[in-house]
């Protein structure tokens, strides 16, 4: 009995329920308690007691009427396969993974669509242009970028091709006007600071009405390690582009200018 007193209270409690067959101990805590007590005198005595009582019960005579009355068919419903079993079936697993992938792709596309803005395709194309340009390809100028709006209007008849106040004070090195792949007039200005380039191009238009599609505020766009920040005003989009990330452009667009 002294060995039993060393067992925990929980073990002692569980040992009263210790079955004779190991497979009947279907809970971890009970198996642990049995393992702890296996060699104790009290446990052995209890098991011998239970074995004798069980043997006595098995001696209960079964009347002939009972044996004859046992039906040939079973009344127990076939076991239902739990949902986990179904989930582990290769066909269901494959279908589940496919649905998950489709859902993820769908969500990504939806998020991208929500973040898209009119003129984004043109802006991305112009970022490729920016990455392959050299400053010497432009006509040299010596002026503030903000002053080039009049130049573009006077020389190229480009209305509202103005540099926003946020970028107007930056010194320009060169400028040019060219037609892009879609025949749109694009103005390009090269500034000294951070070898930044400005692009001004017509805003995307509604196919039916021909009206410019507006959007508010600054929108970021990136392409091959180049980042641009775009704003639409009076049917013309302005994009400031540089080689770098959003954090390089953010200081410019976050400052308030009158």
């Amino acid at each position, binding site marked *: 009995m002294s060995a039993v007193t060393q067992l925990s209270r929980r073990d002692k409690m569980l040992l009263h*329920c210790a079955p004779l067959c190991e*497979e*009947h101990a279907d809970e971890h805590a009970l198996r642990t308690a049995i393992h702890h007590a296996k060699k104790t005198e009290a446990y052995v005595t209890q098991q*011998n007691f239970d074995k004798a009582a069980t043997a006595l*019960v098995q001696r*209960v005579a079964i009347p002939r009427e009972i044996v004859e009355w046992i039906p040939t068919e*079973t009344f127990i*419903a076939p076991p239902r396969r739990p949902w986990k079993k179904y989930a582990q079936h290769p066909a269901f697993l494959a279908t589940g993974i496919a649905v998950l992938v489709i859902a993820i792709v769908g969500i990504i596309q939806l998020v991208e669509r929500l973040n898209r803005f009119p003129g984004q395709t043109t802006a991305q194309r112009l970022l490729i242009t920016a990455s392959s340009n050299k400053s010497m390809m432009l006509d040299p100028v010596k002026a503030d970028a903000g002053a080039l709006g009049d130049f573009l209007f006077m020389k190229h008849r480009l209305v509202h091709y103005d540099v926003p106040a946020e970028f107007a004070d930056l010194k320009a090195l060169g400028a040019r006007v060219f037609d892009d792949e879609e025949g749109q007039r694009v103005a390009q200005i090269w500034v000294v600071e951070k070898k930044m380039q400005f692009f001004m191009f017509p805003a995307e238009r509604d196919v039916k009405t021909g009206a410019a599609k507006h959007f508010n505020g600054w929108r970021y766009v990136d392409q091959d390690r180049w980042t641009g920040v775009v704003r639409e005003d009076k049917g013309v989009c302005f994009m400031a582009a540089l080689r770098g990330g959003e954090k390089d452009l953010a200081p410019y667009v976050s400052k308030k200018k009158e």
Partner: protein
Amino acid sequence: MADEQKQDLLQLYRFCFLMLADAAKAQEIFHATLREAAQLSADGESPRDRLWFFRNARWRCLEAGEQGLRAEEVDFEQGELGDGAPSQIEKLDPEQFAIWISAAPDPQRTALALFYLNEFSYSDLLSVTELKPPELSKLLGNGRREFQAWLDATFPTTQT
């Protein structure tokens, strides 16, 4: 019917017998339980598992026990389990053990009857008796000691 299920039904009769200590009543309840299972099966609502039979028979036995003569509820004496208990138990008839078990108050009666069928896992026992682990433990532990005291009174040490 599989041998395992046939064995379950034989054990069901033994369970009824232990609960009532009356072969005729045990047979009656065994038949009533099987009839209900057959009826449910015919209605397309077959019992989910073998435990259903024992739960059903348990309540029928308790109901039958209420109607007949009832043993007076007394606090049994308790004795420490001894090494000589197996030989004391061997001297008993199954009917004597059934009388002793059927005299125990429920849920101890159900717990002892099910436990000594040596048919159920620990979680099955908890499920059919609807007891919590400490309750089942207490009832089985006390049951053993009370049965030991009864054995000691029935077969005093001088006789063993």
